């Protein structure tokens, strides 16, 4: 793939072992602007491992990962600057308020004013909880605040591991529309989810791990 500035993720023949278990066995795929990739498979097949490898926590023993035509290993920090990862944990400090948490999480990357943060919280339905300590929020509210961080990260690649955990149906709908909007705007989203996804107005591709 030629060097380009448009968002493009390519994995070539990834092999990864966790201990003696051969989790990723020659995985290859490509995703460009507007792609929504739903990673599916039975429990333990490596969905989280794949997402963590794409995020850069794990290094494949063989194979290579390319972003915008360049090998990810050439500039790991640069690659990280262009992605937002949502894992099983919400990555928020329990003793800080939602607003404080987001202020720290976003300003480390890009200067973001308070109004923008509040607008995103509003969009995700957790504006009323912005000044409450994070630990006093419900599980669903916490997940929404965690998603707010992803939205505010100004990242073209979203890696979301079970983003809909603990969300009620309204929350799932709201988050789905946010993810679909990201793809429509030219971003890439790769997510794992147990259930079927309904992402309005977006072309959903599936990656089945066996």
């Amino acid at each position, binding site marked *: 793939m030629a060097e380009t500035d448009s968002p493009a993720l390519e994995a070539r023949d990834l092999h990864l072992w*966790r*201990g003696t278990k051969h989790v990723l066995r020659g995985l290859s795929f490509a995703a460009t602007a507007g792609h929504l990739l739903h990673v599916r498979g039975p429990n333990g097949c490596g969905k989280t491992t794949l997402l963590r490898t794409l995020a850069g926590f794990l290094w494949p023993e063989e194979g290579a990962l390319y972003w915008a035509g360049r090998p990810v290993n050439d500039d790991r920090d640069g690659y990280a600057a262009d992605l937002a990862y949502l894992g099983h944990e919400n990555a928020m400090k329990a003793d800080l308020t939602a607003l404080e948490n987001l202020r720290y999480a976003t300003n480390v990357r890009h200067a973001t004013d308070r109004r923008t943060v509040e607008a995103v919280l509003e969009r995700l339905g957790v504006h009323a909880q912005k000044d409450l300590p994070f630990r006093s929020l419900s599980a669903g509210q916490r997940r929404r605040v965690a998603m707010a961080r992803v939205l505010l990260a100004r990242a073209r690649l979203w890696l979301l591991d079970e983003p809909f955990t603990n969300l009620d149906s309204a929350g799932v709908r709201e988050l789905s529309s946010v993810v679909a909007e990201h793809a429509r705007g030219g971003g890439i989203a790769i997510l794992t989810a147990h259930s079927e996804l309904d992402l309005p107005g977006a072309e959903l591709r599936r990656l089945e791990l066996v």
Partner: protein
Amino acid sequence: MATWTWFHKLASPPHFYRIAGKMIPWFAIPAALLIAAGLYGGLVLAPPDYQQGDAFRIIYLHVPSAWLSLMCYMTMAISAAVGLIWRIKLSHALAAASAPIGASFALLALVTGSLWGKPMWGTYWTWDARLTSELILFFLYLGYMALRSAFDDLTRADRASAVLALVGSVNVPIIHFSVTWWNSLHQGSTVLRKGGPAMPMSMLAPLLMSALGFTLLYAALACVRVRGEVLIRERNATWLKELDSA
């Protein structure tokens, strides 16, 4: 170019396994001969030291094991660095294999050092500068092995202990310097005088032979242990099954 091919071949586990297996007798036999010669020369042939009498003879065991304990640590740190930077698994195997060998040498140095202290000063341990440094080096080895055993995942154990080995190697000179300084302030006993600034050849030659013998012993032991590491790490690999059935 040919040397790089050789190096790459060596870094491949099946090749290393074969080559190391062949090298073991080439290390072990000269090692045994040199150590025997060195010990005979030192324990029997060399004249008694005019100050210490026969007690000094322990240096023929003590000094080489102290040198080796330090050399093993450096080997461990360097191979850990290589494994960390270039992600060569065999390099990590060498680091893992060297640790218990180095720790044993350190323990031997400590034991022989304190045995030397008894006839000289009446007690087995006098917080001598070099022995205390050796003790801290021994602690560093123990910490390294403890860290390795804390991980189930071998890759994480390799990489974490590699970072520790590097941090430790930076600290070894600092520790040595600070302990020497600490000891000099208290006019501590310097048990380990090597018989003055110029050792006569009759004393020095056996010492060098012994040291060289110990080094080759390390090489032989390292080959054995790294082969063992390779067996563990590659136990599911096809080449190993073929070897077994061959």
